[in-house]
């Protein structure tokens, strides 16, 4: 929407630290973390549970304030939820009292009112057709399977043409087959739209499959253990997983995860030193 010079990063995170305080105890959840996301880049945030990857995502989404450090989206400091952000969660989070198409139109209805939402119905149906839900626009969410609801959630995320997609383990609750299928679909969509995406996952293969860069995070306090540049063609399909090159990236990410884990656990990283 706002034209920016291309050298302004889509997301800029500098020395970000986030702590939580509960019952007088301060937990150091994240950081310091620094990361620059280029426009159109697909970033996977990979790490074990509790490594602060969701915290990082929520700070970028403006849902959490940084304890210290800088967070910018499109060159503007993130204070509250930025405009043109689309988000997906682990669950589809459909409102059960609305039809599927009404759910997809919710972001427009909230931002621009009911009339604008009604005017955008065609666009919503196009999106639903794109994810194979063309015939389900007027169904209620509880009539659809979890995977179908999650596809509708993709449409809801995209309905306002967001520049930045924030995905918090979006297919984590789905079975392996559906998940793989959804990943391929999502990748196609983001490639077509050229969207910038931050994708949180704890699956190594999923991270490598989806991302241009895999940001590997260490256990609490979450820090960046390393970044794997994935140089695979952008039109990836499920078969690529078996390729030599893909496995190399997976191994690299796995090694970084191990380093991150050992560091967090206080184990010396020199191989064999502790055994």
């Amino acid at each position, binding site marked *: 929407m706002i034209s920016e010079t291309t050298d302004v990063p889509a997301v800029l995170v500098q020395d970000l630290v986030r702590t939580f305080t509960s019952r007088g105890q301060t937990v150091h959840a994240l950081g310091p973390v620094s990361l620059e996301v280029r426009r159109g880049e697909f970033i996977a945030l990979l790490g074990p549970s509790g490594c602060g990857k969701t915290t990082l995502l929520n700070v970028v989404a403006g*849902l959490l304030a940084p304890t210290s450090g800088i967070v910018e989206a499109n060159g503007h400091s993130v204070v509250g939820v930025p405009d043109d952000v689309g*988000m997906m969660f682990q*669950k589809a*989070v459909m*409102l*059960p*009292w609305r039809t599927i198409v009404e759910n997809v139109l*919710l972001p427009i209805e*909230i931002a621009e009112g009911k009339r604008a939402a009604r005017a955008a119905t065609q666009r919503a149906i196009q999106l639903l057709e794109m994810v194979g839900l063309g015939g389900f626009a007027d169904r209620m969410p*509880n009539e659809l399977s979890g995977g179908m609801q999650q596809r509708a959630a993709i449409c809801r995320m995209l309905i306002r043409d967001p520049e930045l997609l924030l995905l918090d383990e979006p297919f984590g609750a789905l079975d392996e087959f559906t998940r793989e299928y959804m990943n391929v679909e999502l990748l196609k969509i983001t490639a077509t739209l050229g969207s910038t995406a931050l994708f949180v996952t704890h699956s190594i293969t999923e991270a490598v499959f989806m991302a241009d860069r895999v940001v590997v995070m260490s256990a609490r306090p979450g820090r960046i253990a390393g970044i794997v540049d994935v140089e695979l063609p952008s039109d990836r399909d499920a078969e690529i997983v078996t390729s030599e090159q893909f496995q190399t990236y997976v191994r690299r990410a796995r090694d970084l995860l191990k380093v991150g884990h050992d560091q967090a656990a206080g184990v010396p990283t020199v191989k064999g030193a502790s055994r």
Partner: protein
Amino acid sequence: MSTTRTAPAAAGRALDARVPALERIPGWVLITISLAALVGIWQLVVSAGLVSEFVLPTPGDTASALVDLSKDLASGGQAWDNFLVTVQETLVGLLLAAVIGVALGVVIAETVFGRKVIQPLMIALYAAPKVALAPLFVTWFGFGLTPKVVMAATIAFFPVMVDTAAGLAGVDEDQDKLFLVTKANRVQRFWKLKLPTALPFIFAGLKSAAVLSIIGAIVAEFMGGGEGLGVMVKTASVSFALDRVFALIVLLSVLAFLIYLAVDLVERKVVHWRASGFLPAES
């Protein structure tokens, strides 16, 4: 081949055998048998002279009193007029309870003043035996419909208020996050998220209110007199026409049940996305 095919069926029968016998009899049959047994015991107790017929009328007497009452109702006689009065008191009381209950519930859930001031006051009032207010209402509002309606509403609005406040506070965390990310304002969050979330709770409160409002109306009729089924119960009672009292109690129960069902029906229309309520929903 045939053995492999019958094996699962046999296993199924074995599983069936473990289901308790009562589980396999339809509910309505059990209810009918239980009721018949109860009436039988009732008849026996009176016939055996364990309890004087003067104190406890026989089922037969009660049934014929019920028939008389039904005829009176159907012919639009005195019972019908009294019936209409009580229905009117109950429904207007319920409507008032709904409006006041929802309004106060919203104020408690949505405002600091409501949470800090109104809520504690209401809890204190909740603990008070509200039936004791009936004579006061009669003194204030006389012998017409007003004291009965006020009494019905006073007793009935509490569950609506409590459930409305609880429902509005019970928003799903993920849905809340979705509304934060879509930058919804307070008003939008209320109408598009909180209120739909609260609706099933509000209806649960309304169902309690339906039953309570008829109690309120009858209690006020006992105190204030005038017209109504409660007045008829009192009159029949002091003239020792206990069979008539029993028949009137049956009529009042049916009335309460019908109002309850009406609320349930409205709930099914309004909260269409959720299968709940008294009657089993078609799956």
